[in-house]
């Protein structure tokens, strides 16, 4: 793909802003890592060698206990199996992931369901960040919580921009009565308090759906109430571009509105949009965390940072590691994205390349 030399210069400029660039690299690294999360954070082993046969339980159907000589038909408890392998010493072995816990796995600590401190604070082995109120590994929950939050917010961003840009450009391009009416509609729409609507909708929606479907519904609801802010930027940008000569030239050449908007005007307004993107992601992560915190987000036991934060505030004195690690993780991610955002804004700043006379 041949990139516009101007764009190439912007990208080079972005690379030269070290803080933003490295934040970007780290974030991409984290996203890729989280995509392969099951290989790193899981209670299923990567590889089991049992009676000379190899099993790869990570992906795919779960393997019942009977396969490995247990007397139950539900999924094998690999931790028990590992113990057994060790005590039997028959040459069977398994390779566990780096963090051998599943985010939904409740485990009693000292015989009851309560938070266990991180391993370096004297807690049970393997729980680097300790466990939450029902003994689930906090690292695993943060890790998968991050994965859901980041993809949720990326999808959120894509959808809001799609709608926002589409409507905004049309308003700017057509102007007049159409613009006037849509503006009024948007004003009315954006006056509906978003948070209340989400709370109300989510408490009454008959959720016979699976967890992914419910996440998708939350996404749709959030998008429906968030696309409006984008339209204003696009509307003004389109108004401005529409008055330029190249647009007039395209019209004269007989290009239709769709072509003019999306092929001529949009590329010239894209820099405005790009600078908003990271901040939209930040606000989406914050929103979903806040909703989870209030208890109106993802259904339990979906791992989520908001839910952990809530637990943390309730156990501030007895289990400070919950709020501590969640807060740090959240700040880390938001700071990363904010750094990226600042760098993008600087790199795409038109004042760097244009001088008005």
């Amino acid at each position, binding site marked *: 793909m041949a990139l516009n030399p101007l764009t190439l210069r912007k990208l080079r400029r972005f690379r030269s802003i070290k803080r933003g660039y490295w934040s970007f690299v780290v974030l991409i690294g984290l996203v890729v890592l989280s995509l392969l999360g099951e290989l790193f954070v899981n209670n299923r082993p990567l590889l089991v060698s049992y009676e000379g046969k190899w099993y790869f339980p990570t992906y795919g*159907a779960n393997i019942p206990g009977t396969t490995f000589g247990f007397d139950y038909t539900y999924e094998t408890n690999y931790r028990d199996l590992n113990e057994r392998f060790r005590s039997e010493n028959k040459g069977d072995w398994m390779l566990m992931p780096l963090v051998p816990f599943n985010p939904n796995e409740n485990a009693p600590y000292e015989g009851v*369901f309560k938070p266990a401190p991180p391993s370096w604070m004297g807690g049970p082995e393997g729980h680097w960040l300790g466990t939450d109120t029902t003994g689930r590994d906090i690292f695993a929950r943060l890790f998968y919580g991050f994965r859901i939050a980041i993809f949720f917010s990326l999808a959120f961003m894509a959808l809001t921009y799609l709608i926002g840009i589409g409507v905004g450009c049309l308003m700017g391009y057509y102007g007049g009565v159409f613009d006037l009416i849509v503006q009024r509609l948007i004003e009315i729409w954006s006056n509906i308090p978003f948070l209340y609507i989400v709370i109300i909708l989510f408490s009454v929606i008959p959720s016979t759906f699976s967890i992914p479907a419910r996440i998708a519904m939350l996404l749709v609801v959030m998008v429906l109430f968030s696309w409006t802010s984008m339209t204003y930027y696009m509307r003004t940008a389109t108004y401005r571009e529409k008055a330029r000569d190249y647009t007039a030239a395209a019209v004269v050449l007989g290009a239709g509105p769709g072509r003019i908007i999306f092929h001529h005007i949009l590329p010239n307004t894209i820099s405005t949009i790009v600078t908003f993107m990271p901040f939209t992601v930040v606000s989406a992560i914050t929103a979903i965390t806040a909703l989870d915190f209030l208890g109106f987000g993802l259904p339990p036991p979906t791992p989520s940072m908001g839910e952990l934060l809530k637990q943390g505030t309730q156990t501030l004195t*007895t289990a400070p590691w919950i709020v501590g690690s969640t807060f740090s993780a959240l700040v880390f991610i938001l700071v990363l994205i904010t750094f990226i955002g600042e760098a993008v804004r600087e790199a795409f700043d038109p004042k760097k390349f244009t001088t008005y006379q």
Partner: protein
Amino acid sequence: MIMTTSDKLLRPALVLLAGFTLLFAGCGKKDAAEAPAENKPNALDEAKAYYAANPDFFHFKTAQDIPADLNWEDGMELPDIGDPNAKKGGTVNYWVQDFPRTLRTIGPDSNGSFRPWILDDNYLRYAQRHPNVTSLTENGFHYFPGVADRWALDRENKTVYIHINPAARWSDGKPITTEDALFSFFLHRSTYIKAPWYNNYYSTKYSGITRFDEHTFALHFPELRPDIYSTSLENIPVPAHFYKELGEDYPERYQWRNVPTTGAYVVNDRDIDKGRSITLTRVKDWWAKDLKFYRYRFNPDRIRIMVIRDNAKAFEAFRKGDIDFFDMRLAEDWYDKLPDSAPEIANGYIQKLKFYNDIPRPTYGLWMNEATPLLSNRDIRVGVQHATNWDLVISKFSRGDWSRMETTADGYGDFTHPTLKARRYDIDKALASFAKAGFTKRGPDGILVNDQGQRLSIQLTTGYEHYKDLLTILQEEAIKAGLDLRIEVLDRTAAWKKTQEKKHEISFVAFNVGPELFPRYWETYHSKNAYDQAFLEDGSVNPARSPKPQTNNLQTIASIKLDEMIDAYDRSESLEEMKQLAYKMEEFLYEDASFSPGFVIPYMRHGAWRWLQVPADGNVKIATSFEEYHLFWIDEDLKKETLEARKSGKPLPPAIKVFEQYK
């Protein structure tokens, strides 16, 4: 925690931790009470006209008409309540989550967590059930006198005669008379109060009232139920003179007026700090202060109730000493935040009190809706029961403090089935039962599927956000038995609405139950509360039936056999017959398997600062909260000693008390 329209006025209510109610406290709304009184008709005249217009219900006779052969009872032979060592005086500090929305005791918003302080726990009824002597007489419970000093039952005429103590006074000094007893019926049947539940109760439960003289009246009933004393003696008089401005604008007009009370505590206007705190003051020269059953109760001079919006924050306030006692029902508070080794406990500044009570238990469990496709199959319901690991929840989540609920009505003494046991967690039995319903193979995710490829996936709805962890434990255990429970945590009201409209598959919810004589079955199990017309004339299932919303038959159970038992139970005038029917119904419900009994919390536990003393035996047998019977007192000397010791770090003997006499 609890959702039911029980007649809280007539039965001691559980104060709920609940209430996520947002309220606009202190928002400077002009009080209707301050509005100048208009020249409007007097409600007392209206009441008189009402009595005259309803001669079938309101009868007026003279003292000569009182039958001479009545067997009057006064309950004075019952043991006293409270501790003779109790000291009077001092101020107790406590908290509520929300500022009361009104000081009315009837009408919109009045049924909040503050009302027990002015009504349920405070107000003297005509007579009250003795909280320690729980054996049964032929007339039901044992009663000790309150506003009435004696009463008598006329079985033949289904009538209870009540004599009001001539010494009884309202807190504003006016005497309590039979006018107030009559007015109670006018008020509670009036549409002005905007309380349809009372309107209905006072119109259907009673068939009439007769006034004989200033202090004697009688209540008439359409039938002679074994709990006739609780519907008559636990009734209350209302101060007629206070309600003389009663009218259409009652809710606004009386919003912030202090109702005169028969009880020990009143709220004075100057003690209302809207949005912040409200203080109760002991009535000066309270008429019942030296009477048996009351002399050792209602001890502190003042009870200051602060508003603290958050439970965790209130706990810290308690730890600081701003609050004198705290409900430590959460395992986390009891074991982790204030363990026995905590300095306040080890040094004896704060006492830990655990009291085992003996009351009907709230029905925590899984309510399965039989009107849904999967759960209409009994084999699946049985499977769900065996796939639900309550024992793990009890041992690991409650840390062994709770116990298993066994029937749908635990804690009713003789009325609770003596031998029936709930089904235990058993993966093999669950799998066998699911297999009978066609779910034989496990899918790739370990969940059972049937031949049509349908997954055994059932939704579990709840409004109890604080029990979310418990449900994830059940969920994880159910997967082992091939059952997928999809947890749905909704807002409390939304969850309750969904359940009452029978839109749920399984609901985790509990009914609050008052300390009643016998369990109720009609509300929860009669087919009338499941479908509008469950069966056709010939007894076959009505094909066009659909679940009836807004009833408490959460399982949508409809059985002609069960209906017959319930009807017989509700008609019965013999306790023994009712007991046998209750056992049969419990057995029927066990076989039906649509209620998976969960857990029972058999105790209350509190932290209390050393100066807040409780009786030597802790509390009364049927207590549902620390404060319900007002048995505690403040010891000012101990307070001084404790505060000084805390300042200097001097240890005092620790006070960790467990009261197990009713375990």
